[in-house]
């Protein structure tokens, strides 16, 4: 009996420990291939060259154009999702009936369950033609359309995490604001949002991290032309799209071209790792304690 209990506990422990093994494997895979890449291409070239053309005869290995593309689509997505998501969070908390809230929240979550390849189709076939009708010169593939659609996708992420943060602010603070004669709007922006600011910030950082790693929307709608630009109307390429582009092609295993996707993946991993841990840190450090 004792022995059986011990065996079961070890098996359970092993399952939990596998998660550490996964992290180690990710880092090991990215590092080992990246090291081989950087033995041929110096880190200085990688960080300073202004073109990314590893698949051409004249090879340039500057990651900046891919980073610029990723940055651009992410900024557009957040510019869409943050105002809408935060307004929803405030509206549901300060204005809406509790019944309305219980119905609307699961509906909003549907936005997050749609496969991203479907959003990509939407961006390419509906949003881009729509934008082209009043933005002359908008290319068929562009960062704007992909960014907007990505923003719509991450609305529920910001709205639901911010909503949790705002509703965690104690009633007494809100009632004190009302007692001073504040309107709901003044209470929301004068008291509730500042009190929940760390939680809202966490939701935004996680949303950024999600947007940086998003792949199919940008692969379908933003183009495959690495370009060091912040112009949202022209085709660009994100880090994730580049990895997809190479994976679809016929690049031989072990070649320098093959290793570029791991160097690109390493860059992506570093970005999201920093963002995720920043959010954990803020959550832990700045979470207001009301008792």
């Amino acid at each position, binding site marked *: *009996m004792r022995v*059986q*209990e011990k065996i*079961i*506990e070890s098996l*359970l*422990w092993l*399952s*939990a420990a*596998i*998660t*550490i093994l*996964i*992290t180690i*494997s*990710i880092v090991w*895979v*990215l590092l080992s291939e990246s090291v081989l890449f950087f033995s041929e291409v110096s880190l200085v070239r990688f960080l300073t060259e202004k073109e990314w053309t590893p698949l051409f005869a004249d090879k340039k290995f500057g990651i900046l154009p891919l980073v610029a593309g990723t940055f651009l689509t992410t900024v557009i997505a957040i510019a869409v999702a943050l*105002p*809408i998501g935060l307004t*929803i969070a*405030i*509206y549901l908390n300060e204005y809406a009936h509790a019944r309305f809230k219980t119905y609307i929240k699961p*509906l*909003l979550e549907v*936005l997050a*369950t*749609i*496969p991203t*390849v*479907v959003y990509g*189709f*939407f961006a390419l*076939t*509906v949003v881009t033609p729509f934008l082209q009708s009043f933005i002359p010169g908008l290319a068929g593939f562009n960062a704007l359309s992909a960014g907007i659609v990505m923003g*719509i996708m991450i609305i529920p992420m910001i709205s639901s995490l911010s909503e949790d943060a705002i509703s965690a602010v104690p009633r007494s603070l809100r009632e004190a604001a009302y007692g001073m004669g504040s*309107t*709901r*709007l003044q209470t*929301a922006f004068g008291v509730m949002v500042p009190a929940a600011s760390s939680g809202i910030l966490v939701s935004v950082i*996680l949303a950024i*991290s999600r947007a*940086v*790693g*998003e*792949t*199919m929307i940008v692969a*379908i709608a933003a183009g495959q032309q690495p370009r060091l630009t912040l112009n949202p109307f022209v085709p660009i390429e994100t880090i*994730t799209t580049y*990895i*997809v582009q190479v*994976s*679809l092609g016929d690049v031989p295993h072990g070649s320098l071209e093959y290793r570029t996707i791991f160097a690109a*993946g390493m860059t*992506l991993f570093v970005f*999201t*790792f920093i*963002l*995720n841990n920043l959010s*954990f840190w803020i959550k832990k450090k700045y979470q207001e304690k009301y008792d």
Partner: protein
Amino acid sequence: MTNSEKNRLKDKAFQVFGVFCTFIGLVVLAIFLIDIVIEGIARIDWDFLTSLPSRRAASAGILTAWAGTIWILILSALIAFPLGIAAGVYLEEYAKKTKLSNFLEINIANLAGVPSIIYGLLGLELFVRFMKLGGSLLAGALTLSLLILPIIIVTTREAIRAVPRTIRDGSFALGASKWQTVWYQVLPSSFGGILTGVILALSRAVGEAAPLIVIGALAYVPFVPSSPMDEFTVLPIQIFNWTSRPQAAFLTNAAAAIIILLLITFLLNGVAVYLRHRQQKKIKW
């Protein structure tokens, strides 16, 4: 207008803006779904569901794609389900509050935030190359299992945490061992919640294309996979492939395939929501 009137006006204006924001996303979603249904519904017929892929849009079907998706769904469930629950049970019931368990927690939260395409790179090196599984269903399912493992662990823990302390105390008082308590009391009473989490995680896996493209799943597979070692394609990859072609007829195919993919996704989510609802109704501690 007095100051107080102005403030009330602003308050009302924001209320209207709040309603607008709440519905804008849903309205866009509705426009989008209607657009896809209009474009794709006429293309869906028995032939479309049972035909192999083809270079000619009119005769191309999604048989291999949806067969691949079902294969991936089942294999991923078989791999990630026991592993995720076991890890969740360990962290919630067995782990002591040590530095190690704290590290495990942060690590799982981190894994949940790793972009799916990075899991693709991991799968490519670990399963496709190192374990020599090639671009097979098994390699794809293993990759997606790792991707959804953190989600399953987190939801398992939440479900287990909802089981009150008294249930465990009662079980121990009757002389049950730790594992007996977990197996006969804790797991059965939290199973609804756990299953909900697993199904939601699987619905995420069904929609993933990026990691499978990276591990080398093909867009053109002219046969239905019959074993886990076969090459495969899935619906999202087929949709991506058709979307990236210039001819309009392929876009119609993509819309039709999207309808099928969304049906599967919504079905899984619907089952999950139903299970959660039933669980909440049935059990009152």
